[in-house]
């Protein structure tokens, strides 16, 4: 009785453990199959307890009920085990394609077995015997074997995944199910039909092969070999005990295996989480680094643009570009080579290495075929590990170093390639595609700088020509006229002297003296104007200050300078020149026409900081407003102002002096501070 109780208890334990495992949730293999294992365990446990009562119950009616229960429970539990086995077995993936024929081929033996099983129900043995036997052969045996194979497959997959603890338990579970297949599926009660009669009883198979008949001795006339009674004889323990042991092994291995699997899975989830956090941090850092790099590049490009806009020396700008490339690309050498005038040689002109950037004084020919290829084909080039390093010779100058990686871009002016910009690394770290894009941006800056250099040169030539023309005009209108006038006057004086008209001669000489004095003033003013330039590196405000002081001394007109600007004027260079010229023209007008005693020059930034305002106010005689349009000098001043985006306004009335206001747009707007908001707008 105790064996049957424990047998029932152990299988009930299997069912309960599977059910509890199922209720815990989680995502583990065989989760979908677990309800069937639970159902099997519970029904099989119930079957064991029914068997227990059947052996010791004496009430006939209750016995009948128990018999019916057992007849129902045994195939039912077998069916649940079969479904569980199929569920685990179907996890075997991927099965070979030819496996589709296996069920088809198995149909024939299955049909025979089923028919044979049905035929045993019409024999003289009690109904529970064939039910017991066929439940075991047709349900327990294949169910346990499939479960065993399914768990062995789990052992294989978990071992491959490196979950050795889980794998061992799965192996144990597989082995436990296979043992269960033996004790639950193959050991059956004695009966006069097969297949137990083939392997359960001595010599039956031999009989079939030899055609002889052996004398047999059991209740059905057969000698037991592997039936319930034989197991008891051999082991001293009933088969129920071994079945109970197999059930305990199954529940132990399966439940423990699922537990460990869950632990491993949780641990892996934690590892994954940590890995994800680390990856996120790395991505964040990479994002910051990328942003910083982009900022560095942007700042460098802005600085280069500023230098170009400020008409800095082209060589200096190009050295700065090469140096920036070297630093920002983390390169060991960067070079800028340009074609010579007849485009016959590619010469290194600028280079940077080890924090040093310089202009190459003597032409250094560049013979690298790779760089020539970049120039001729106007293609971008970036070496990778796959390319031979021998191609990189003659790409690094002025020092030792073995170039390992190179990137190069052509410098194209309009449609013609004029040079190559390249960077070289000695360290084993190839340039990225982004590096190549940045280098190309710098190449564009090189092109802009070179173009600006050409334009500046042309402008300077133009300015010199214009200035010479202006001086020629001044001499023609001033000195030449006066000298012509003096020549005529001298002839007149000579004539008066020959005629003895001394008074008239004296009168003419006085006029000539006055004319010479006026001419002298003009010449001195012109000399002052010519001296007052910005070419000496003077600031605009300083030049104005000095000019005003000199003007006051020369003309004896009281001058006042009201400068309200601190620091630089923030005007483009050309605008600054035009502003000084407009001031000179205005003061010349004051000296020549206004008959003023004093003049006030003020320089102020407009309220919104977007422009500079120059005011020249005198206390002279003034003029009618209609005279403005006829004044060639005022017209010139207006044109000068408008040529750089500025404006000119003249306010005057007879006897009330003159007020000239000139406004020039600033190079950049001042930062406007507002509460909680800092805006920077640009006008580059």
């Amino acid at each position, binding site marked *: 009785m105790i064996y049957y109780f424990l047998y029932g208890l152990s299988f009930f334990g299997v069912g309960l453990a599977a059910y509890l495992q199922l209720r815990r949730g989680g995502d583990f293999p065989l989760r979908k199959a677990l309800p069937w294992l639970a159902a099997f365990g519970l029904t099989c446990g119930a079957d064991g307890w029914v068997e227990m009562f059947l052996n010791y119950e004496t009430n006939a009616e209750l016995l009948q009920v128990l018999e019916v229960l057992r007849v129902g429970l045994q195939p039912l539990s077998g069916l649940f085990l079969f479904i569980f086995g199929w569920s685990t077995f179907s996890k075997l993936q991927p099965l070979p394609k030819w496996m*589709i*024929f296996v069920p088809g081929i198995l*149909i024939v033996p299955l*049909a*025979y077995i*089923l*028919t044979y099983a049905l*035929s045993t129900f019409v024999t003289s043995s009690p109904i529970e015997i064939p039910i017991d036997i066929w439940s075991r052969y047709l349900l327990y045996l294949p169910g346990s074997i499939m479960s065993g194979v399914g768990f062995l497959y789990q052992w294989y997959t978990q071992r491959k995944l490196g979950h050795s603890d889980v794998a061992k338990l799965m192996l144990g579970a597989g082995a436990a199910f296979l043992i269960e297949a033996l004790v639950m599926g193959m050991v059956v009660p004695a009966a006069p039909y097969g297949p137990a009669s083939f392997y359960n009883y001595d010599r039956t198979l031999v009989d079939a092969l*030899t055609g002889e008949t052996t004398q047999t001795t059991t209740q059905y006339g057969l000698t037991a070999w592997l039936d319930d009674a034989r197991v008891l004889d051999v082991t001293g323990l009933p088969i129920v005990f071994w079945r109970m042991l197999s059930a305990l092994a199954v529940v132990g291995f399966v439940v423990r295996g699922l537990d460990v699997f869950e632990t491993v899975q949780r641990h892996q989830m934690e590892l994954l989480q940590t890995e994800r956090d680390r990856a996120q941090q790395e991505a964040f850092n990479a994002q910051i680094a990328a942003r910083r790099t982009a900022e560095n590049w942007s700042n460098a490009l802005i600085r280069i643009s500023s230098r170009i806009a400020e008409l800095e020396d082209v060589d200096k700008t190009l050295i700065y570009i090469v140096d920036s490339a070297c630093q920002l690309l983390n390169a060991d050498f960067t070079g800028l080579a340009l074609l010579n005038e007849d485009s016959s040689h590619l010469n290194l002109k600028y280079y940077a290495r080890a924090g040093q950037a310089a202009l190459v004084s003597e032409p250094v020919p560049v013979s690298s075929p790779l760089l020539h290829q970049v120039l001729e084909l106007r293609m971008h080039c970036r070496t990778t590990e796959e390319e031979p390093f021998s191609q990189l010779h003659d790409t690094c100058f002025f020092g030792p170093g073995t170039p390992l990686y190179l990137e190069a871009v052509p410098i194209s002016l309009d449609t013609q390639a004029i040079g190559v910009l390249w960077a070289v690394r000695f360290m084993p770290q190839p340039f990225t595609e982004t590096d190549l894009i940045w280098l190309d941006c710098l190449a564009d800056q090189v092109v802009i700088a070179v173009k600006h250099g050409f334009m500046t040169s042309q402008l300077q030539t133009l300015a010199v020509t214009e200035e010479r023309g202006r001086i020629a005009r001044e001499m023609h209108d001033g000195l030449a006229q006066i000298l012509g006038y003096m020549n005529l006057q001298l002839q007149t004086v000579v004539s008066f002297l020959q005629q003895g008209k001394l008074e008239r001669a004296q009168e003419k000489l006085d006029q000539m003296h006055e004319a010479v004095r006026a001419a002298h003033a003009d010449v001195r003013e012109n000399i002052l104007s010519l001296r007052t330039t910005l070419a000496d590196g003077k600031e605009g405000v300083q030049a104005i200050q000095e000019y005003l002081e000199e003007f006051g001394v020369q003309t004896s007109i009281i001058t006042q300078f009201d400068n309200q600007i601190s620091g630089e004027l923030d005007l483009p260079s050309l605008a600054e020149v035009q502003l000084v010229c407009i001031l000179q023209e205005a003061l010349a007008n004051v000296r020549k026409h206004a008959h003023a005693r004093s003049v006030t020059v003020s320089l102020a930034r407009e309220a919104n900081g977007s422009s500079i305002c120059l005011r020249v106010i005198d206390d002279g005689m003034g003029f009618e407003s209609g005279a403005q349009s006829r004044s060639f000098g005022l017209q010139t001043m207006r044109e000068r102002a408008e040529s750089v985006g500025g404006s000119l306004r003249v306010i005057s009335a007879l006897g009330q002096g003159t007020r000239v206001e000139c406004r020039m747009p600033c190079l950049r707007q001042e930062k406007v501070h507002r509460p909680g908001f800092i805006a920077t707008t640009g006008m580059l």
Partner: protein
Amino acid sequence: MNLREWALPVYTILMQLATGMLLILWLLRSTILKQTAADVVDKILRKPVAIALITVAAALVGSHFHLSNPWISFLAVMNLGRSWLSREVFFSVLSLLGTAMLVYLTWVHPGERPRIKFWLGWAVVALGAATIFSMSRCYLLPTQPAWNHPTTMALFFCSALILGAVSVFTILVMDAIFSRDYEPDLAEERDAILKWAGRRLVWVALIVAAAIMAMNIGRVLEMRAAPEDAMAQAALALQLELYRLLFDLRFVTLIIGTGMFALVVHWLTAQKKTLDQLVTPAYVTCLLILMAEILGRFLFYAAHVRLGT
């Protein structure tokens, strides 16, 4: 029936199954060769032919467990001139050899020697028919009134036909799925042949199933109509009393199996289900009809009453 006696249903049913398969296959082959290239036909039919060979071999192996001693079973052919049993064994062995040659020709030389294949195939079918004929003659014994009846031979041939029809259809379904990846260029032809064959085979199965039931019921009525025949009454009692469960099950499985076969073919031709969805119903159909025939054969052997000693 003890276990060793089950060798008889194994042998007879499997031989009839193999013969029925080859008959259906060669009927199909002869018809579809008019529209389809010979090599394509060979490729489509070679796996069912190979399965027929395995079936014949299994039948012969199974038969050995019934003979007194498997190692001297070849002596069974010694009485070829006067024993139907010797002739049965003789024709069975010839069927095996002929089927093996067919397998060789269709697998190794697809599309070649069509005339040889044609005549060899029909010869194998004829050998199978001769085997079934000899087999049935073995049971037409005056001492066995239950067997000694024209329906014995008719039922044997009917078994061959219905088993052949259902199994060929099931194998073609399996092969169509299996070969989808290996011979994708033949997928359309396979599909067309499967539908064409299914529509005809289902009628074969329905008619033969009706004939089987009619013959069995007729035989029962015939025995009932002869209350004075003690042998007939004894056999009837065995069938309708001791083996009633199996007797009823035999008809139930036959009816359900044939009905399912018709349903599967309808699903296929009406394209209501994919081939993958049809595999399991096709398996079940085949299993049910095979079980029906095995049950019928079991009853045939179990319900006979020997006259005399």
